[in-house]
């Protein structure tokens, strides 16, 4: 099982806290919206970044971010 990160684009308003808290996986585009560095839709969260990912999920003001387990 691997952990993946999912962005609900209908909720995201480009506050940008996720990219600050999880810079290893996310950056922001020209308009301040998160961009997955690898280009994947739902990127794999490496084990060492799981805690940071959880932190990013909890701190999104619009609850647009979640992690999930995938086979």
């Amino acid at each position, binding site marked *: 099982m691997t952990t993946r990160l*999912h*962005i*609900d684009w209908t909720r995201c308003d480009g506050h940008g806290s996720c990219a600050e808290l999880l810079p290893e996986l996310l950056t922001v585009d020209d308009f301040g919206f998160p961009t997955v560095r690898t280009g994947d839709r739902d990127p794999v969260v490496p084990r060492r970044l799981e805690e940071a990912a959880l932190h990013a999920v909890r701190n999104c003001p619009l609850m647009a971010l979640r992690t999930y387990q995938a086979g």
Partner: protein
Amino acid sequence: MTTTTVPGSTRRLLGGVQSDVARHEAAHGPLPHLSLHELLELVEASGLTGRGGAGFPTSIKVRAVASGVRRPVVVGNAMEGEPLSHKDAVLLDRSPHLVLDGLQVLARALRARRAILAVGPELDPGPAQEAARRRRGLEVAHLDGGFVSGQETALVNQLNGRRPVPRDPFTRVTESGVDGRPTLVLNAETLAQVALIARHGADWFRSAGTADDPGTSLFTVSGAVGRPGVVEAARGSRLCDVLEATEPRRTAAVLVGGYHGAWVPATHLDVRLTRSDLTPWNAAVGAGVLHVLDDRTCPLRFAAEVADYLAGESAAQCGPCINGLPQMASDLHRIAACVRDQRLPAAVARMAAQVKGRGACAHPDGTARFVGSTLEVFRDHTAAHLQGWCPTTMRPTPRGVS
């Protein structure tokens, strides 16, 4: 809107019996009762793929709602929000019973709680409503919405009484859709194909098309043609053969797959309309939209207007789509207007790459595909524009452009 038969093609879907049930049964025979197991085996063996755009294997979609304990909802999608597509409108006018047969045979086999045919605002729901009156338990819903309203999560939202905009696809509609139930959404033409497969079997279905891409499809042909309309042709037909009966004029390129599609230049009209043969052009058969561009129309001006339209049709929910699509359209307009800024194509390509995969639906991806294909296929034309002249409307002279 006319319908045209391609010489040597199989005419399966557009029988022209309209809502007359006696003629429908005379033409096609009675609809068999099939168990879920029998229907799944048939659909899987037929190799049928969705005719609404994405081209996903139908058997996998059916299986996704067949496994659960909750009774599913089956939805026929005739929203047809793509302005260049009219095949579902023609199909519902000519053969509404065939579409309802597909809905019914699936609903029975799946023991569906509801079976709904969703008809878009541009389509006449009359023949389908008339045809549904003779059957029990089939609903025909005449709905609202624009380009993205036929996207399956947008359709589910509208059927649940919400705004007709896509939702986050994290929860699949096959898990929770209409009324919170597992929901199977299939395009109207796909349903008609299911109705034929249920009657005539998988081998019959495979007697047209190729081994990888079997059966027939409806194509809507528009643009620079003498006889625009809906054509039925075998999958894997050559593009030029499908176009022939519509009398194309001075073809420069053909837009395959509609506004979310890609261009095939006039030099390659012998390409076969299959997934693999169209891959080099980044095109797909999609919902069967073919739009012919003639050599008297500037492709960049055409593309900029389409990009404008697509930016305007954004559901305005996802940031990358809200910001990226108007930016792409505006830069494309500048190229079309012969602004001599050499950085423009790279800016458009960069924005196209940026929006890809970053939305709740495929609208940004489809728009990026169309725009990317325009700059790729019309590379020489674009280069001329960046030199300050348009090869369609002007001619370069030693003193400049006349």
